[in-house]
């Protein structure tokens, strides 16, 4: 395990708060940041033939949007702090993908923001934060 922290960003306020927290933590402890954007995607969804035919194009667009819209601005901030970092944009189910990446990079901690969903909504759809807390092999910091 290396002195590194995986931080999840998604362009939301919660993601920004998570990034700020992770930057502070990295500055203090000299940790490396893995700035991650997970694009929600499931290999088990049902699509029309037309959606399938256009999937590759859409995927490129999604990655481009996540990279230039969220990950690069985050990376600029992190670089400004003089912190070591890497960026990852990955498709997949959010919690599961974050865990896989945490394992791949051998991070000590995962930092994510809270979306602040209402009780019923999170009951129905679950929340990434609570899924992650339940299943993560490393400590998870949920930034409110």
């Amino acid at each position, binding site marked *: 395990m290396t002195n590194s922290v995986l931080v999840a960003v998604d362009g939301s306020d919660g993601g920004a708060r998570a990034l700020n927290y992770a930057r502070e933590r990295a500055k203090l402890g000299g940790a490396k940041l893995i700035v991650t954007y997970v*694009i929600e995607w499931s*290999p088990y969804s*049902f699509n*029309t*033939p037309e959606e*399938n035919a256009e999937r*590759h194009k859409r*995927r490129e667009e*999604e990655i481009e949007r996540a990279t230039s819209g969220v990950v690069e601005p985050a990376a600029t901030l992190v670089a400004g702090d003089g912190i070591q970092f890497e960026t990852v944009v*990955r498709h997949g189910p959010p919690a599961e993908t974050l865990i896989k990446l945490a394992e791949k990079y051998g991070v000590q901690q995962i930092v994510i923001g809270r979306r602040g969903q209402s009780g019923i909504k999170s009951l129905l759809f679950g929340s990434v934060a609570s899924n992650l807390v339940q299943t993560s092999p490393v400590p998870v910091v949920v930034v409110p």
Partner: protein
Amino acid sequence: MTKFFGALTALLLLSLPAHAGFDETINEITAPIASAIGSFVFFKINVFGAGLPLVVLWLVIGALFFTCYMGFVNVSGFKHAVQLVRGDYADPDSPGEVSHFQALATAVSGTVGIGNIGGVAVAVTIGGAGATFWLIVAGFLGMSTKFVECTLGVKYRNENLDGSVSGGPMYYMKKGFEERGMGGFGKFMGTFYAVGIFIGALGIGNMFQSNQAYVQLNTVAGGALDGMGWLVGLILAAVVFAVIIGGIKSIARVTEKVVPFMAIFYCFFAIVVILMNFTSIPAAIGNIFSGAFTGAGVQGGAIGALIIGFQRAVFSNEAGIGSASIAHAAVRTPEPVTEGYVSLLEPFIDTIVICTITALVIGTSQVADPNFAGDATGVAMTSAAFERQISWFPLPLAFGALLFAFSTMISWSYYGLKGWTYLFGEGQMGQTIYKLIFCAFVALGCMVQLGPILDISDALVFLICVPNILGLYFLAPIVRREMISYKARLASGEIKKYNH
């Protein structure tokens, strides 16, 4: 033939202010043409007193050949197909493309249609219980045909400038033959196929579906929709219009999500009905086997049952038609043969599982009460079999039939579109014209009776089997080479399994 359908569409659109006899008028016009097309495509030779359509023989021999030539890939490749669909071999570092599961689900949505509910009833009515046996055999052999055509579909697809992909038999024939130094022939075959799939999309993937959905709705409504086919047709056409022209993706998306659950729901209740008829199960299974080899009471005996079984199987699972390869071509994989493996599950799910279950629902009902359905055929007969045990079931069945019909129409609108764009290019204007024609035929399908519709639909679909299977014979060695190389790399561990 295109000209004729064009004229027919124009006629339909011009006479839209409908009157009571409108449905009948349409019927009178289509019936003789249907039988003419039918007798041309289904040119029969006499085998032991039964008329064997040459085109069915063509398909069966093809499926048998591919099964042997590919070393019974339908058996040996089954386990690997399941592993691929499960994502065991998916590279975890590049997710986000169309997965094997998605490609399979899309293709299955296209094939699981009215044929699985109504087509089986037609088979059993004409071919007796024994037709079920041959239906299953045809499904089993058809797995190999699918393997070959879907591998080729991925291998020879086109990547368009905008990043989307177009594939299918027209592309593999054109490029595959070109590679073998037969460019001219390949071009001809590709064009022939493209014309065929375009017209076939209007039959099997369109009119037959909307027709049977209407029939089932009418049955549930207790005949209240008699003579109102034009109205149901127009409504259905309007919804299809909203999706394929209006771009209202949410309707399509909802349908694609609901269809798999409907299929599971259907199978579940079908098994419930079969279990409720449990005393009839042994006799029903006995009838299937004895009927398969004696053909008692069937015109043409066992051969007659065989012909009907094979015909219905192809109509349901589309093996040999090449349509699935258009759907599978969307998958980005460095190994085209993996799509072949995945696709062989389609005839299995569609024919060996779902059709067999339907056949058993009807078969066990027949044993218990030979006249359970009265004069009903097609979907109405299947519905009656369900109703015997579960009185409320025709209603969800009608809903399911409507959804199956709808999702099949959406899939086929795409297949037909690919034929069209192969012929006329990817221009938007042309695509819209095609889609308008497609919608007109949805409406038309509800206005004619089952007989002529089935004839036209069957004929058109079997017609495109001719160039497709011919192409497959020529290109099969390429698939075989790929398969052998793939298997070797699989065994050596060069192709990694990520999930253990």
